């Protein structure tokens, strides 16, 4: 069984982002970039499925500029077997991304596609569901537990009301929640080994897919700044302020 994990290179989650003064976007130059956090959970889950003897190959796919190769290498250093890099210098929308993933999936024929439930840059939360619909494979979104059993999998999903379990048939698409697992760190020997693992690079324009953007970004701005309030000296003062000044209790 083959597993395909898709990963996105994003601004590191610890970086306080800065909006560009001209409103054209956020500052990405000289900013630390990392693998999208829930994508790390997807890589980790694939490794665990393989370690349990239920899969024999893990492919890491990333779509982006040349630097996306670094993110693929991170996945390879964690333990994946090979990489596929679909090269584009444009920021693609989930619609185009899901078409590319589907195309790769048709060639590679994985049994499961795993990815993060959401990228922490555009916060769209669309790619997994779109890929599932395009391939006509079942989807298991916001997964916090994946149990593969023969030709099916039982997936626990994190929903607003609590938890839900569904049974899906293989092949399927899983979008991973942060609580699915604790991603491992790559060891130094594995980082060295990863440098020799193959990455197959193709240009996005060679795939025959329309990747033109459909949504126009008019502007990006800072959210309204919340004014810092006051410090109160004790609980009694706090309750008085809430009662008489803020009038919320």
């Amino acid at each position, binding site marked *: 069984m083959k597993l395909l994990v898709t990963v996105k290179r994003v601004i590191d989650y610890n970086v306080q982002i800065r*909006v560009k003064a001209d409103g054209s976007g956020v500052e990405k130059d000289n900013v630390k970039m990392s693998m999208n956090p829930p994508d790390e959970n997807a890589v980790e889950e694939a490794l665990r499925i393989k370690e349990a003897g239920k899969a024999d190959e893990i492919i890491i796919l990333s779509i982006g500029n040349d630097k996306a190769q670094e993110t693929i290498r991170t996945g390879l250093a964690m333990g994946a077997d090979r990489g596929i890099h679909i090269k584009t210098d444009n920021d693609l929308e989930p619609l185009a991304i899901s078409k590319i993933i589907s195309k790769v999936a048709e060639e590679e024929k994985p049994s499961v596609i795993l990815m993060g439930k959401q990228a922490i840059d555009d916060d769209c939360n669309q790619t997994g569901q779109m890929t599932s619909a395009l391939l006509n494979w079942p989807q298991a979104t916001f997964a916090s537990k994946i149990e593969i059993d023969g030709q099916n999998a039982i997936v626990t999903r994190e929903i607003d009301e609590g*938890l839900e379990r569904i049974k899906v048939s293989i092949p399927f698409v899983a979008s991973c929640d942060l609580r699915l697992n604790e991603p491992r760190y790559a060891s130094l020997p594995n980082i060295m080994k990863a440098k020799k693992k193959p990455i197959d690079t193709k240009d996005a324009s060679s795939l025959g897919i329309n990747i033109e953007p459909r949504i*126009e970004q008019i502007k990006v701005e800072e959210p309204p700044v919340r004014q810092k309030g006051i410090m109160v000296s004790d609980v009694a003062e706090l309750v008085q302020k809430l009662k008489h000044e803020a009038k919320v209790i």
Partner: protein
Amino acid sequence: MTILVLAEHNNIDIKSSTLNTISAASQIDQDIHVLVTGYQCEELAKDISKCEKVSKVYLANNEKLKNPIAENIEPIVVSLANNYSHIMAPATTFGKNIFPRIAVKLDIAQVSDVIKIISSDTFMRPIYAGNAIATVKSNDNIKVVTVRPTSFDPVETSGGKEQVENISFDNDSGSVEFIDREESQSERPELSTARVVISGGRGLQNAENFKLLNEIADKLNAAVGASRAAVDAGYVSNDYQVGQTGKVVVPDLYIAVGISGAIQHLAGMKESKVIVAINKDEEAPIFNVADYGLNADLFEALPQLSSELDKLNTIQQ
């Protein structure tokens, strides 16, 4: 043109998110249709048809639709889509799960998690966990949009035309089987719609200490929330989580107890009307967004808060 809203419900009650989404839709167009997919939910379909802005409710009533399986709901929406200028749903795990499928089947780029409607094709949405706000324009023929429920006041369920039309469903995908759902049970108001929320972080130190918050929550008729740190540490279950990867709350009063104020958490609560922070670390970033900060040990402050609230209630009576 008309707008189609996909209703979120539990076969018994309408979820508030549906009324918030109808409200968002009414800012674009005054003619709104609502699609209800479910099982034995005629009554709630009728209730939705009582909304003033709703001229028609479509009801797909089938046992296979009892649970919201995305693969089953998607074709129903897609089959109706061409009659509409916009298709909208709440950006809850319900809407998020289904809508991108609809968008891709129509070959349309979805606009997710809209917090403000600028015009019929232009919307504002948070990116980078709310650390930036993007204004985007959709150039597709049909706009496929999910909206953040807390950004729009719910509509009333009165003054409507009360028209419900049944539509058929015969498209079970068969590839997904619902097993069960474990809903958190609570006597308190629901976290995402509560007027007062009190949340605890790692400062609470263990699950047992969350009782201190429960006691105050009961006095304020508040919902109890938690930071991701507290959830990851296993103090409370995941559905308590407020933040980028949890729930976004906009209560009148938000009380953060023993929460440092990571960006992750702020993304889920910084739109609250009044924020109170209680933390023993005076450098905690939560104080930068708090209207009222109290630099104190929560294990002393919470019992005091509890007794001060008792005094207040005694005076009022």
